[in-house]
């Protein structure tokens, strides 16, 4: 079995989840609590990766992250290296690909918070940031965990975007889904089957966790 691909996949899913939890939480808070001109446009933009074929996302990411793209150019200036075909590159791709799965559940969880709790927090002297950290986050843990699980699972399953941005470099960008694809191409069904099988208990356990969280939120 290709343990290296399995390891890269888990590492990628973990890094993507951590990065997205940090980046998406303020975005979700802003969308849940504020009205501003162009809000629906901004929201549609955030959810766009859901509606686009992965290859389309991959194509635009290649343009952006290539040496002539502004993200790739900036990366080259800062590090002297290329972003395409690196682990950092597939992390960026995975983050963009999974943004909707982080923002949507967190936004829904934040929107459920009683505004009067926030008012009480302000009366008690908390700044908006402190109220977010001390009131909103602790009262949205089920939604935040659900978002993390969804992002993790979605990152594990990513294929097209990662293949386009990262290629298939063992130990660097070759994730399990690509390893399965390559094994099938080479008619090595045993190898493909082993890798595929290893994901079923992981994904099933995470889905059970989501169901449990959803029940907790509903109650």
């Amino acid at each position, binding site marked *: 079995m290709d343990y290296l691909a399995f390891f890269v996949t888990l590492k990628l899913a973990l890094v993507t989840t951590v990065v997205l939890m940090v980046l998406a939480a303020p975005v979700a808070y802003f969308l849940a609590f504020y009205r501003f001109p162009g809000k629906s446009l901004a929201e549609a933009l955030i959810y766009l990766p859901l509606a686009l074929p992965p290859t389309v996302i991959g194509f635009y990411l290649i343009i952006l992250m290539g040496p002539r793209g502004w993200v790739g150019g900036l990366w080259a200036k800062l590090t002297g290296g290329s972003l395409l075909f690196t682990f950092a590159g597939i992390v960026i791709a995975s983050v963009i690909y999974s943004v909707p799965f982080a923002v949507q559940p967190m936004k829904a969880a934040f929107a459920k918070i*009683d505004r*009067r*709790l926030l008012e*009480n927090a*302000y*009366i*008690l002297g*908390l700044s908006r940031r402190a109220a977010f950290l001390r*009131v909103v986050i602790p*009262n949205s843990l089920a939604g935040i965990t659900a978002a993390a699980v969804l992002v993790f699972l979605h990152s594990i399953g990513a294929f097209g975007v990662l293949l386009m941005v990262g290629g298939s470099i063992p130990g660097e960008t070759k994730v399990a889904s690509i390893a399965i694809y390559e094994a099938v191409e080479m008619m090595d069904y045993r190898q493909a089957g082993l890798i595929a099988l290893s994901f079923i208990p992981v994904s099933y356990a995470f889905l059970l966790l989501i169901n449990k969280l959803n029940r907790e939120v509903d109650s």
Partner: protein
Amino acid sequence: MILSAFFKKRLKYYDLELSFSCPSGKTMVMIGPSGGGKTTVIRMLAGLETPDDGLLRFGEEIWFDSERRVNLKPQKRRLGYVFQDYNLFPHLDLYDNAAFAAVDKKEVDSLFEMFGISHLKKRKPHMVSGGERQRCAICQALARHPRVLLLDEPFSALDVVTRRGLREEIKKLKGRLSCPMIYVTHDINEALFLADEIVPLVEGKIDEGWMQRTISREPGQGVAARGAREPRLSLVY
């Protein structure tokens, strides 16, 4: 220190316009029918809503001045606000709720003792009764050493017996507090029992005749307060 307010605000069905003041150590009860603007006034005092026009001062400190475009945030006003539906933080136990913004956490114990909820410190809000929750909410407000204490129909969701008990506790508390207390209710008995001054608010305006009209229309009203010192009706400037 005197809290003095002048507010104008256009609401959906009427224009709210009133002025009042309340000195430290005194309790001003704002009373009137539902939808008369009482909660809007108390929210404007807290900084949770903004008047269209007005001036709000606490002593020499200006909290709101529409002309000078001053509007102190709720965080900076340092007041205590007891909400009608408690608004305790569900993820914290009663002790942590009360100590949430306490100036001195040691005081929380004595507040809990004073309100008879010491045995409930480790309970979450959903595990205790409405009266116990409201006692905790009062402790939370007091632990912050508020410069002004606002109570917005704090007992309206409680049963009659609990309500009477808490009313007594607030009466006792009055003697100890050195800050102005603004109390909103639609219960005339409660108003007569607690108030030093009463401001009847009807459709956004002070209506001094409202109490008399209501009592004569509903003779039962005001009975419980018989024998209590008659509060002065409305200190309006």
